[in-house]
């Protein structure tokens, strides 16, 4: 009897209580250990599966660490040029109003090089979902200072800590977007604890539902971590996130639908 057959016997009488959704490929994630991207990918795809919209969902990936999102999300994906994800999503949604469209962007992509696209997409009230992964750093290129880097936070291009007199405070673009009449639902969640993961999933679920109802732009900021860029262990990074990121980026709904 070989090892595989032995395993089959062991697992034969067990019930499946938790498994990979069909909407996720079984490719091995390239993300660093402890990175929040993997969790958010899974949440997105769980929601897509639960709503049974796999065939009508189109995602737009950014340039940055999640440039490879198409390897994992088993739906139609396109990677846009750096910062242009929400603009590309606009084009898709305008010609395919029945499709469910989301962009998935990091802080550098969404709040630095893509600021104009982000603000105008929100202001037009495009009926899409924008998922904003905020880990306060450029992970892909080697840990440079990002628009959301915290005051005094050390990165490779703020070696003595971010100096707000020199480069300003972290950009709270989510609050900024909530001010625009075009946005329908704006919230900030995190994936650093099981409780927060559940809240994050609810926010994503709501956003997809709103889009299916033809409501306006939904914007979900996910406060995430970057153990490699922050030079911490995954556990340390989640603790650091709780103690440092969340005071600056407080969790919760920033704008709830006015017609509910």
């Amino acid at each position, binding site marked *: 009897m070989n090892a595989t057959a032995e395993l089959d016997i062991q697992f034969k009488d067990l019930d499946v209580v938790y498994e990979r959704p069909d909407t996720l490929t079984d490719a091995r994630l390239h993300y660093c250990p402890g990175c929040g991207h993997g969790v958010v990918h899974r949440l997105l795809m769980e929601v897509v599966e639960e709503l049974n919209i796999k065939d009508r969902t189109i995602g737009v990936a950014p*340039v940055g660490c999640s*440039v490879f999102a198409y390897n994992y999300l088993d739906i139609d994906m396109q*990677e846009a*040029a*750096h*910062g242009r994800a929400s603009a590309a999503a606009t084009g898709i949604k305008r010609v395919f109003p029945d499709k469910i469209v989301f962009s998935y962007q990091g802080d*550098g992509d969404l709040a*630095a*090089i893509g*600021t104009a696209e982000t603000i105008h997409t929100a202001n037009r009230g495009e009926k899409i979902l924008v998922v904003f992964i905020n880990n306060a750093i*450029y992970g*892909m*290129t*080697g840990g*440079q*200072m990002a*628009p959301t880097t915290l005051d005094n936070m050390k990165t*490779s*291009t*703020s*070696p003595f800590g971010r100096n707000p007199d020199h*480069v300003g405070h972290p950009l709270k673009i989510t609050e900024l977007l909530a001010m625009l009449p075009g946005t329908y639902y704006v919230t900030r969640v995190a994936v650093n604890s099981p409780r927060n993961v559940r809240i994050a999933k609810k926010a994503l679920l709501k956003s997809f539902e709103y889009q299916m109802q033809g409501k306006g732009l939904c914007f979900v900021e996910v406060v995430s971590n970057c153990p490699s860029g922050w030079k911490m262990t995954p556990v340390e990074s989640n603790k650091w996130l709780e103690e440092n990121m969340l005071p600056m980026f407080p969790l919760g709904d920033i704008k709830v639908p006015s017609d509910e």
Partner: protein
Amino acid sequence: MEAVQSMVRIRSGNQMVAEGALRAGCKFFAGYPITPASGIYKLMIDMLPGRGGVALSAPDEISALAYCVGASLRGQKAMTATSGPGWALMIETVQYALMTETPVVIAMVQRLGPSTGGATQNAQGDVLLVEHCTSGGYTIPVFTPSTPIECYELTHIAFTWSELLRTPVVVMLDKEVGMTSEDIDYMTIHDLTTLSRQRSIQRDNGKNGAMDTYYFENPEDVPSFVPVGGQIKATVTGSAHNKAGKLQKNSPETLEVLYHLQKKIDAHANQMELVKRDLQDGARTLILSYGITARTAREAVRRIRNNNGKVSWLNVLSLFPVPANKIRASLHNIERIIIPEENFGGQYRSVLCNVFDKQEIVGVNKLGAMITPDEIIAKVV
């Protein structure tokens, strides 16, 4: 005390670009993260503030170059560093710098394109994109180092020409040249003279004693520099303008300014020519290389000569304006020119085909992998 004979350190091309810029008196740097040019950005952030300069993080490449132009309009030597996708965004401001005669240096570390392409793959595919980025087809001086020492020297030289001609100048590396570290001897760096743009003193243009921001006598002349915020009123516009820097449609003076932008570069093209030559008597083949392919070419030349073959080698350091005189002077008895390039069309070959029609020009081209010496040797007569 004994004189220092050597000072060997391990340095990458990117590091030496940063050090060359500091040596040239660069006082302003703005950058945005992009592989494979991020090393220059990081080093300038680390080194420049301690040397009395300003290093800024920009929200994108559009801003990065615009910051530099602003600093340069005030008179500071400024530089940014990027790769293909960032260059695409910078083109607007490159043209603005050219039109407003604002010196600025751009270190452009090529990666595989088009679009986001391959961030960590080498290529020499941006040669024509860089050179032909202006509406109107103006010459952008481009220098192409192949070693860390050349990175240092050519960045310095790029600053010099940028200052003297008041025009944007590109130091074009490729990923292998920028990110490969090797031991270099600082004592082998050539003596470099640091020059800066000529500043303007109060001058009369014959019109009520008023000063023209872009006053020149002959179209080949470079106007002396009037900093914004100085004692002389300066007017700067990216629109077609007369010598006073005022927007005009197509007055004779405005057209004269448009011709002048190219003529000032043409007039200095001979002086800008930079090549390294290793010619052999009796050789009928010349290998012409630039950037990383120079390293392959050097090895190909060594192998050919070890086998008693004859070959000449020319490494082009000033890609544009095309160093036609120095190339021509290397073509005695040459029947075939081999140009290895890591791009599929032979971009520099297509430029030289228009200049040299007596020789057969052959390309060795490859995408996504480095050209090997044997691939060059196979094309030698």
